[in-house]
């Protein structure tokens, strides 16, 4: 009897000991050859966590650098990742209590008549005051500043409030909020002696131009970009830090440039005829010009305005056309296949823009402008590759990655995502910046690159934990 009791005790001990109550085991996470103890992120709006047309708090909290830092915290990274957080999710900026033009509150969807969804600004007033500096709670490991171009990261006065009043502004209100006086973003990064960094810059060097239809701002010349990018990597690697740099995605794949078709205007026969009658004088004037100057025949052919029943190309002001205003002929033509009409134009057609009156050229990218943009992106990315190689830093090929996502989308844990505007879930309502879910996808791409180039095994991010576009 005693023996039996002993056996039973042994049985209970043995089998309850090794079985059943164990939790599932995680992968073996490791830092590989990299030291993640002090991670600093340098970049633009993408790094800051910008989305829906503004910088807002939960977007910052789930910025890709914050997600990377969380992942790194499993393999020796600090669990404190300090960011210049805004007060709430309203977004927008105020300067001395007044709304700062061009820095509106967060975009949101609103259901209108007939169930149509429209995009509006959050009606709540912004409470992110530019003069209300948060520099005292620094240093910040997320040094992403929305709107920053490559050279802005090097500028000591980029956060100087006096520069906001200059025309054009020489300072950035987002950086004014958290700058140490006279400290460039690169200096702010270097001062923290990072062991690991990410640098993702260059988008705005071409995007600001593209977003303005190629009619405002300028593309940073690649030769200059090379100098700026070299200076940035020289600084970041000066103390032996490891890092990853992101290259420039093909911004022309962004919803901002793809949502509106080139022929977005539906017309019936009667309306088309009436419009054509209105442009008859313009078309006749062009015919007379050709008689005077036959060399202009090819241009005149594409300048002639013709509407028909069905989908129509909008009329817009094209500053690349030969100036015939002396003959009373405005520099207008219809957009043509292959050209791009930007997202903000979509709300203007109903008011007669593109038909009764020409659309501003700031909403249209011509073939030439598109070529300039693509050429610049290619040059930047070659420079990024070469510069990164010379400093021993890995490149995260965001260009290829974004292309593959816009071609195939992503399926993750039973949910399908794509770059389709609003419904795709990856791009926010500004059509340029990712949603928080999109940023989680970006973080995973950085993690994959870090893992393969530094022999690390950082945990990836569950992208379904992060919100996409909120439906009303």
């Amino acid at each position, binding site marked *: 009897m005693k023996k*039996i009791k002993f056996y039973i005790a042994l049985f209970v001990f043995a089998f309850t000991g090794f079985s059943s109550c164990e939790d*599932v*085991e995680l992968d073996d996470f490791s830092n590989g050859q990299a030291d993640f103890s002090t991670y600093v992120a340098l970049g633009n709006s993408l790094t800051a966590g910008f989305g829906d047309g503004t910088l807002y708090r939960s977007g910052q909290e789930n910025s890709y650098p914050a997600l990377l830092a969380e992942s790194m915290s499993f393999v020796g990274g600090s669990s404190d990742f300090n960011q210049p957080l805004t007060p709430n999710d309203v977004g927008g900026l105020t300067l001395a209590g007044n709304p700062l033009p061009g820095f509106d509150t967060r975009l949101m969807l609103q259901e209108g008549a007939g169930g149509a969804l429209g995009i509006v600004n959050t009606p709540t007033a912004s409470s992110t005051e530019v003069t209300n500096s948060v520099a005292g709670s620094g240093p910040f490991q997320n040094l992403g500043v929305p709107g920053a171009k490559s050279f802005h990261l090097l500028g000591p006065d980029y956060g100087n409030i006096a520069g906001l009043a200059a025309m054009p502004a020489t300072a950035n209100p987002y950086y004014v909020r958290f700058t140490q006086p006279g400290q460039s973003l690169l200096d702010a990064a270097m001062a923290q002696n990072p062991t690991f960094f990410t640098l993702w810059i260059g988008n705005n060097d071409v995007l600001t131009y593209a977003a303005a239809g190629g009619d405002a701002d300028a593309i940073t010349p690649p030769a200059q970009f090379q100098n700026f990018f070299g200076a940035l990597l020289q600084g970041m690697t000066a103390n032996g830090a490891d890092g990853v740099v992101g290259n420039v995605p093909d911004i022309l794949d962004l919803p901002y440039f793809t949502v509106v078709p080139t022929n977005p205007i539906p017309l019936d026969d009667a309306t088309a005829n009436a419009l054509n009658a209105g442009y008859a004088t313009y078309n006749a004037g062009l015919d007379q010009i050709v008689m005077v100057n036959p060399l202009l025949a090819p241009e005149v052919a594409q300048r002639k305005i013709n509407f028909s029943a069905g989908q129509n190309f909008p009329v817009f002001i094209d500053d690349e056309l030969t100036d015939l205003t002396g003959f009373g002929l405005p520099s207008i033509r219809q957009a043509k296949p292959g050209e791009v009409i930007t997202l903000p134009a979509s709300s203007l057609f109903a008011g007669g823009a593109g038909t009764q009156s020409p659309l501003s050229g700031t909403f249209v990218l011509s073939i030439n402008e598109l070529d300039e943009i693509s050429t610049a992106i290619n040059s930047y990315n070659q420079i990024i590759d070469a510069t990164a190689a010379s400093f021993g830093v890995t490149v995260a090929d965001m260009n290829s990655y974004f292309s593959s996502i816009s071609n195939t989308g992503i399926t993750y*844990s039973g949910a399908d995502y794509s770059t389709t505007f609003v419904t795709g879930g990856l791009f926010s309502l500004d059509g340029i910046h990712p949603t928080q879910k999109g940023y989680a996808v970006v973080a995973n791409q950085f993690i994959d690159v870090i893992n393969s180039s530094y022999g690390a095994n950082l*945990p990836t991010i569950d992208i379904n934990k*992060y*919100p996409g576009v909120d439906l009303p």
Partner: protein
Amino acid sequence: MKKLIGLVILTIMATQVQAAGFRVALQSAKQTGMAHVGVGMNLGPESIFFNPGALAHSDRGGISFTGSAVMSTTTYNLPGTAVTSELEDNIGTPIALYASHKFSDKLAGGLGIYTPYGNRVEWENDWAGRFISQSIDLKAFFIQPTLSYKLSDKIGIGAGLIYAAGTVELQRAVPITNEIEPDLLLETDGAASGIGYNAGIYLQASENVSLGVDYRSKIEVDAEDGTITKLNFPDAQAVNSVFTATAFNATLPLPAELAFGGAVKANDRLTIAADANLIFWNAYESLDFEFNGTVGGEMSSINPQNWEDAWTIKLGGQYAASDKIDLRAGAYLDYTPIPDATLTPITPDSDRLNFSFGGTVRPSDQFSIDAALLIVNGEERTVEQSESVYDFAQRYRVGAVVPSLGLNYGFNK
């Protein structure tokens, strides 16, 4: 006492996945103590479940009740991430009740009410697999009137008609708006019923050796006109116009099972028994819902399962420590029927090596109390997203701790 019975009945079928697939192998506390063997044993009223052929060999009628508490310890990890999840509300309480009567020396009959299938898996809110399943609560109970006839001192046959009834409630989140909190949930609710049988042959080969075969038929339970409920949906027409369904039809097969068993009395005190069960899970090819409107724009939902027939192999022993005390122990292998491609968090599953032990105390000749503890010990299992037809990466450690209590009353001969 009345109150207690009410409570027990309320929770009768709230059953955690305890055996592979969505079987529940907790039909007798006595047998659970020895790896849930019993097809080749002369058990008393519990033979209604294990092998009706043995019932007539029992020397008296009786009543046997078993209640169990399945405390699931199953945990989940999204492979490659540090994301883990566990089950909410992780206690299920299946019961089984059998009553038998000897009409004559050769003829016995009885009634069993038991829960051979059930599935209650509720994951944490906002967990990683919510677009596949947030929760399932499948409740199925069998009512089985049974007759058994002793052809000779060696051979007994028996069969029972099974009426199966149950309800199922499924919730899954809908990834349509990408909102995190609150998640949109689709709730699918339905009641179902079906008919089948359980038949067995018992062979008392010698004084010390007994054998048995039992077959329980497949039962198709049809759920008709179940309800679909949208929870926490946004108002936007753009969403609601593709979710117009309010009702569904579906069919779920509860698979057939063939069981072989044998027992050997090694000496006056020690009995060793083994069972092998083959469960014909390949009947579960697809779980298809037909809707009376759209769900995500679709009029139906086809969910391939392609489960495979699977075995359980059991070995148990019983030791009569005294006239009043029996001690038991057992171990069994319980193979999963679910291939990697169609594994889902609806039935997180893996091959299992389970251990059990237990005992019986008999205060009198008529009354006895059984206790058992079953340790369900699933092998860690990982399926990558690329392997899953549901595009869901999953790693589980399946486990449960199951105490069972049995009460038995034997009628006077």
